[in-house]
Structures are given as structure tokens and as C-alpha cells.
């Protein structure tokens, strides 16, 4: 019983800190706004002297309170019986502690604010309006009381709900849930048919492609730009996928090759600073080739290193290139901190092909090409060699694989893809500068590959959609995007280190009888 209580108190404490943190970063207000968009109750009449925004905030806090209670009432693995009593007391205690912490904060913040202390000098999101919202428009003491009562209640309810709904580790259960969703999808007769028969597969791909081609014509310029960006990140993700997913080399400086492609396109087609105004179609392959070459050069000294060392060194390379492109010393060559403007655009049969829609098509084409190349490589001697290297490098050498050459190959091909992405990116944006090529780009691409699913193509696409598409949808959360991204990386590693869509294994031994492939998950060794 005591252990239960301690667990519940801990839970309440953890959630208390989380809620306090959320308030301090101003998220309680943002959540309220999100909910008001969701429930469309912005102009509703006040309820119990609470305006809609306050109500929404309370709903948000209530949800957290429920969760706190549910978490706090969890029984430990060793207990066999699970009486309602313990669950309810657990929920209640957790809610109480949660509420206590939050109400103390409300009291403190409210009193200080009343005294005229400008808290936002130190905590920039704790503005007077935010404080007022948090206190639901009441005095500090009253607001604090509201919190403690409300959160204790919701904690209790949370305990009640969780006991009613079912137990088990959330991680295991959610993982199992996701797996069963994937299973269900793959068991659907349609999917079976598609997977089994080659012809059906082509038809389906054809239809998908057609849809994808028609989409940009209907979507507005903003969405086309977003789709284009997602497309470029798919490109980059596929390229990095070869390096990280297939060959197992963690490259944190991938943006360097992106930059080479972008700057090559920029410097060869723009009027400044070199007065070359070459055609887009000439600059593009040059950019790709230069990026590949840089991959070889950068890779040669570096690929013998241990995994984490390789990561840091590549990060160093990326930063070196960024700093150099930004430096004044090299401005005559690179355009310096202000970048390069008026980058050339592609032409089709003499006419400019550079509208938003046109670029989306171009990027699609590039993505298709890359998918084609990746697929061919993956299912060849080279792809197997890469996979073997990733599994066990020492033994793969004994298979006759020259690991150095193969790693260089992977690195160079990955770099080439990044160069392609960079060139397209620069041309589309008509402008590029050093700040387009910072570390976060590398990390974003790494996240796309890893969050999406290492070593497989649908995973990368899913990753790009999630990481680049989703934030555009939830634009209100713009300020929190990067922080959430960081937390997401941690959560993904804890929950699904193999990625959202783990690699499926091809069947090579069995004669093709249309049997479904079952997705195999890579488990931790």
C-alpha cells in the first residue's frame, strides 16, 4: 500500500512539474486557442463566469489531470490483485499532489503579478494576460483553489477510468496496438492482392501516381510549397537512408552535401557573384556530381572511424562548410552572409518551368528517380553488402566485401542525392544563403530516416510527411515545433527505435504464391 502511495505521489509530482513547465512556456494559452479552434467555441457565452478561452484551458488541464490520475493509479507489476480501492486512492493522491503543485504556482505567480513584479523579464511567456487566464480570471487565492480542487477531481476520475479500461504497460500496449493496426492493414484482402500480384501492384502504383500528379493542380501555392518541401526532404531522407539505413553510418553533417548542390546551382546560374548565367539543366548535374565528389573526399579519411566519432566528425564538416560559406573571407566566392540571389530556374522546351506547380512536378520526378535507384541498389549485390556491413562489419569483410570501398560508395551516392535536393531547393527558392544550411537540416533529415523507419522507402516517406508536413498543418504550434521535435526524438527512441514502419523482408526462397509478407520488426539485441 505504501509503495502504491509513493508511486502515486511521484506521479503527481511528475505531472505537476510538467504542467508548471507547460504554463511557463506559454503552452496553456496556446492549447486553449487550439481547442477553441477545434471546438469552434470562441464566441460562445461564458459559463460559470468563465469565458470560452478559460474553459478550453481547463479542459486541457483536465486532460492532463486525468492522465496524472491514470498514471498514478497504475498497479506495480508484482501485485496480482487490483482492487478498485487502491486505484482510486492512487488517482486521488496523484491528483492531489498535482493540484497542490499547480496551485502553488498559480498562487505565487498571481501574487507576484498583483504586486507589480514583471515576471516576463525573466520568463518571457509569463505575461500578465497569461497569468490572468491561468487564474481563470479570479484572485490568486481563488484561482489556486480552483486548480487544486479541479485537478484532484480529475485525478480521481483518471484513476477510475484507467481501472475500468484496463492495465498494462503503456509502451507495450501502444506498441502492440500499432503493430496490430499494421497487421490489420496488411491482412486486408486488397493489400494482400496488391502485394501478391505484380500486375495489381503496378496498377495501384499507377493510380497513386496519377493522384499525386493531379494534386498540385488543385492545391494552392502555400500547399504546393509545402508539398515541395516534403518532397525535398523525402529526397534527402532517401539519400541519407542509404548512408544510415543501409550502410549504418551515422552522418550528422549531411547538410554539407545539400549545401554543395544548392551553392553550385546558385553560383553557376545567378548573375552575382560570378556573372555566369548557365542553364538550370547544366548546373543540376554538375551540382550532383560535385556533391558526390565531395562525398568521396570527405568520406575517404573519415569512414574508418567508430560510429559516434563518425557522427561528430561529419557534424564538424557540416559546420565547417556553413561557417566558411558565411565568412567574409570567402564572400567573393560564395556570396557571404547575404547569400546568392536570382538563382536560375528550369525551362521546358524554351518556356520557363518554374511555377509552384512545376516545381512540385520536378521534385516528384526526382523522388521517383531516387526511389527507383534506391530500390535497384537495395536488391543487388551492393545492397546486400551494405546490409551485411551494418549487421556485422568485421565478418562482412571476411565475406570478401571491401568495407572501405562500399562505405565510400554509399557515402558518395547519398551525397549525390543530397546535392540533387539542394540544387532543386535553391532553384525553387530563387535564393540561398548560409542559414539555409545549418545543423538542424542535418538533424531533421536524420530524424526523417530514423523516425520514419530505417532502411525502407515507405518509412522515409512517412517520416518526411510527419516531420515536415504535420507542423504545417498545426501551424499554431510553430513556436513549440523544435522543442517538440527534440522530445519526439527521445520518445521515438524509447518507444520505436526501429521506426514507425519497420522494414519488411522479401521472400526469395518460396515460389511466388501470392502469400503475404509479414512485417518483421527489428528488436533490440
Amino acid at each position: 500500500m505504501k509503495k502504491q502511495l509513493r508511486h502515486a505521489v511521484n506521479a503527481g509530482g511528475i505531472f505537476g512539474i510538467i504542467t508548471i513547465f507547460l504554463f511557463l512556456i506559454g503552452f496553456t494559452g496556446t492549447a486553449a486557442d487550439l481547442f477553441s479552434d477545434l471546438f469552434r467555441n470562441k464566441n460562445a457565452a461564458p459559463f460559470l463566469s468563465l469565458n470560452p478561452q478559460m474553459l478550453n484551458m481547463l479542459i486541457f488541464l483536465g486532460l492532463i489531470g486525468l492522465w496524472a490520475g491514470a498514471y498514478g493509479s497504475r498497479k506495480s507489476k508484482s501485485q496480482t490483485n487490483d482492487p478498485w480501492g487502491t486505484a482510486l486512492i492512487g488517482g486521488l493522491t496523484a491528483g492531489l499532489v498535482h493540484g497542490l503543485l499547480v496551485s502553488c504556482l498559480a498562487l505565487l505567480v498571481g501574487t507576484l503579478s498583483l504586486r507589480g513584479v514583471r515576471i516576463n523579464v525573466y520568463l518571457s511567456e509569463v505575461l500578465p494576460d497569461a497569468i490572468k487566464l491561468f487564474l481563470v480570471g479570479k484572485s490568486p487565492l481563488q484561482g489556486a483553489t480552483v486548480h487544486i480542487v479541479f485537478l484532484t477531481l480529475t485525478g480521481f476520475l483518471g484513476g477510475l477510468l484507467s481501472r475500468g479500461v484496463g492495465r498494462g504497460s503503456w509502451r507495450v500496449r501502444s506498441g502492440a496496438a500499432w503493430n496490430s493496426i499494421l497487421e490489420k492493414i496488411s491482412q486486408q484482402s486488397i493489400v494482400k492482392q496488391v502485394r501478391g500480384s505484380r500486375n495489381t501492384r503496378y496498377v495501384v502504383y499507377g493510380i497513386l501516381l496519377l493522384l499525386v500528379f493531379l494534386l498540385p493542380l488543385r492545391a494552392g501555392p502555400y500547399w504546393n510549397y509545402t508539398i515541395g518541401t516534403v518532397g525535398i526532404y523525402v529526397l534527402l531522407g532517401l539519400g541519407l537512408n542509404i548512408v544510415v539505413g543501409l550502410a549504418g553510418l551515422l552522418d550528422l553533417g549531411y547538410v554539407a552535401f545539400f549545401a554543395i548542390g544548392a551553392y553550385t546551382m546558385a553560383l553557376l546560374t545567378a548573375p552575382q557573384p560570378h556573372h555566369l548565367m548557365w542553364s538550370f539543366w547544366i548546373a543540376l548535374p554538375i551540382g550532383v556530381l560535385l556533391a558526390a565528389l565531395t562525398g568521396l573526399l570527405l568520406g575517404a579519411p573519415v569512414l574508418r572511424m567508430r560510429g559516434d566519432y563518425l557522427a561528430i566528425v561529419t557534424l564538424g564538416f557540416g559546420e565547417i562548410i556553413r561557417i566558411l560559406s558565411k565568412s567574409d573571407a570567402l564572400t567573393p566566392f560564395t556570396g557571404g552572409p547575404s547569400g546568392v540571389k536570382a538563382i536560375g530556374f528550369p525551362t521546358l522546351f524554351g518556356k520557363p518551368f518554374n511555377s509552384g506547380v512545376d516545381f512540385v512536378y520536378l521534385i516528384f520526378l526526382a523522388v521517383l528517380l531516387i526511389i527507383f535507384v534506391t530500390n535497384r541498389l537495395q536488391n543487388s549485390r551492393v545492397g546486400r553488402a551494405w546490409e551485411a556491413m551494418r549487421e556485422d562489419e568485421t565478418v562482412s569483410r571476411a565475406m570478401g566485401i571491401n568495407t572501405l570501398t562500399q562505405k565510400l560508395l554509399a557515402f558518395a551516392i547519398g551525397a549525390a542525392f543530397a546535392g540533387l535536393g539542394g540544387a532543386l531547393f535553391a532553384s525553387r527558392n530563387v535564393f540561398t544563403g548560409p542559414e539555409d544550411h545549418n545543423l538542424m537540416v542535418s538533424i531533421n533529415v536524420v530524424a526523417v530516416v530514423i523516425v520514419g523507419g530505417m532502411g525502407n522507402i515507405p518509412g522515409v516517406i512517412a517520416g518526411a510527411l510527419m516531420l515536415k508536413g504535420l507542423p504545417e498543418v498545426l501551424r499554431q504550434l510553430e513556436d513549440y515545433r523544435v522543442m517538440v521535435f527534440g522530445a519526439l526524438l527521445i520518445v521515438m527512441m524509447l518507444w520505436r527505435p526501429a521506426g514507425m514502419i519497420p522494414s519488411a523482408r522479401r521472400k526469395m526462397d518460396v515460389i511466388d504464391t501470392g502469400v503475404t509478407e509479414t512485417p518483421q520488426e527489428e528488436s533490440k539485441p
Partner: protein
Amino acid sequence: MPNVKPPARRVTTYKIVQGIIGVVLAGYLIWRLFVVFIANPSYGPDTWARFAIAGLILGSVYALVAIGYTLVYGILRMINFAHGDIMMIGAFGGYFVFEALKSIPTPTLADPELTFLNAHPALSVIAAFIVGVSIAALSGYFLEKIAYRPLRGAPRLVPLISAIGASIFLENAAQLLFGAQRRDYANPIVLTRGEGWGIPIGGSNVILTYTGMLTVVISTLIMIALYLLVMHTRLGRSMRAVSENKQVAALMGIDVDGVISRTFIISGALAGAAGVMWGIHLGLVYHFVGFIPGIKAFTAAVLGGIGNIPGAMIGGLFLGLVESLGPAGLGINFQLKDVIAFGILVLVLIFRPTGIIGEVLTEEKV
């Protein structure tokens, strides 16, 4: 037994490439040094002295952070990417202490505007250190507990990504909490930045700043204390045992999880102290302040041989000096001083990954 000559060493293309790079770089260095020192000397000994002193001070801060990296790498074989951000947390901790003490009025007849900060500077500094170090140590503890411990058995890539995520999270959480603006450390008046004892060198007055001296002294004391801890206490022995072989240490009755936690606490404390000193001496504190020093400190740790504590200290000092003297010495722009640090990192990892002093960890066997 017939007398056989030893087999020829493998002359791989790799070694040829290394050789070429080495020659090119050496040539560049010699050329630049020639230009700066012989062909076109523009700095007098006083300027060099200033650079050197700044480098030493910077180096002692890097050394502290580097030791933190090396401790964690030795024990877990992972790079704690978020270590620089722990330093940032410590820096913020000290900042808030100074801000709080700055607003406590302790007026006297002589000085009606006196604040606690200026009335009791020693106490204030100690308080700043205590708070900064504690918060950073706590953060290190929770960081390990949340983001690293559950991933203990996973392949190398996974905890590294988690560490990157933690770093990004911490930086941006700090930005959301405290805003993006760069904040000034409010030093007590006796410790105003830039003031110190003047030493005449080469014709002008080279200043040994109070803040700088404080930094060097405190760093040295901490490093000595740490070395004693690791070499002569039970905890230190346990730490060394766990870094050699986790399983065997567990079999010997060592609480491996506890040792790892304590290592992170110590490492965090070191970073926190470094953060406070960074704030006092360099003055600027903001959410991103830990990122580049973190990478540089890692460079220093690698320089000295990762896993090797005295090596990390020497590596830190060396890196600080090179970074300070480098741009002037090579006659290149000061903007590029980070390039020097990154360049050293890359070069060391290419040419001598075991570090200048030599690595303490064992390699994989077939």
C-alpha cells in the same frame, strides 16, 4: 628456427591518402606561420600575451566540460550530446542567483544604493556556484534517468539520437522559458568583467582579469578534487571498474546503475560549474550558449584520449590556447576560429583517434 624477416606493413591506399592530407596541411601551417611571424609580424608580445591568457582561461573551462564528456563516455561508451546544454543550465542557475541577489537592497550610510550582491560578493559567488552546480547535477541525473537508462542495451545509434533529441529539447525549452535574448551576467562590482591586475609586458599593460583568475583557480581546484576522487575513493574505483567491464563490476557487487547515476551527477556538476564561470567571465548567457563549447569540449576530450581524465584536462587547455592564438597565428579571420576547433577535431579523429595521450578503452576483438 629459420630466421624470417618481419612481414611488410600494409601500405593501403588509405594510408597514402592520409599521408597526402598530412603533407598538405603541414605545408599550409608552415606557410601561414611564416607569413605571420617572419614576413609580416603585426602583433607585439603584449597582444600574444593577451591571447595566451585568454586561451588559458577558456581552456580551463573547456577542460572542466571535457572531463564531464570523458567520464560519461568512459562509463557508457556514448557521447552525451546534451552535455553542453547542462552547462547552459548551470549558467542560467548562476544568472538567476545574481539577479535575485541584485534586487535585495542592503543600504548603508555610505552607499544607499547597495545591494546584497555587491555587499557580500564572495557569498554571492558561492551561492551562484552552489545553485548552478546543483541544478546542473540534478539535470544530469534526470537526463540519464529519462533519456539514456531505458536505452542501455540498444545499438549505439539509438542513445545517440536520444541524446541529440535531449539537446534540442533542452535548448528550445530554455528558449521558450527565458526568451531568446542574450542576457548579461550581473557580476558583483568587485568582479566586474575586464578589470584586474595590470602586468606590463612588451610596452603596454596586459590585464589579468579578476574573473579570469577566479576561473582558472576554481577550475584547477575542481580538477584536482576530481582526480583525487577518481583515483583514491571507493566511488572512483567503482567508476573505473564499471568503465572497464560493466558485467564483471556488477558481479563484484558494484551497484552499476548507482555508479552510472553518480557519474552523471558529477559530470553535470562539472558542467554546471563551467557554466557559471562562463557566465561570470564571458558575461553572455542564452539558450544556445552550450552548443559550441560542448562540441569544443568534446574535441578536447578526444584530443586527450577519450576515457582519460588528465588527458581531457590537457586537451581542454590545449584547445583553448589554440583557439585563442590560432586565428592570429595563422593570420586568418577571427570569424573562423570555430573552424580551427572543428578542424582540429576532424584531424585528430582522422590521424590519431586514440588522442595525443592515448586512449584508455579497449577495442573490439574478433
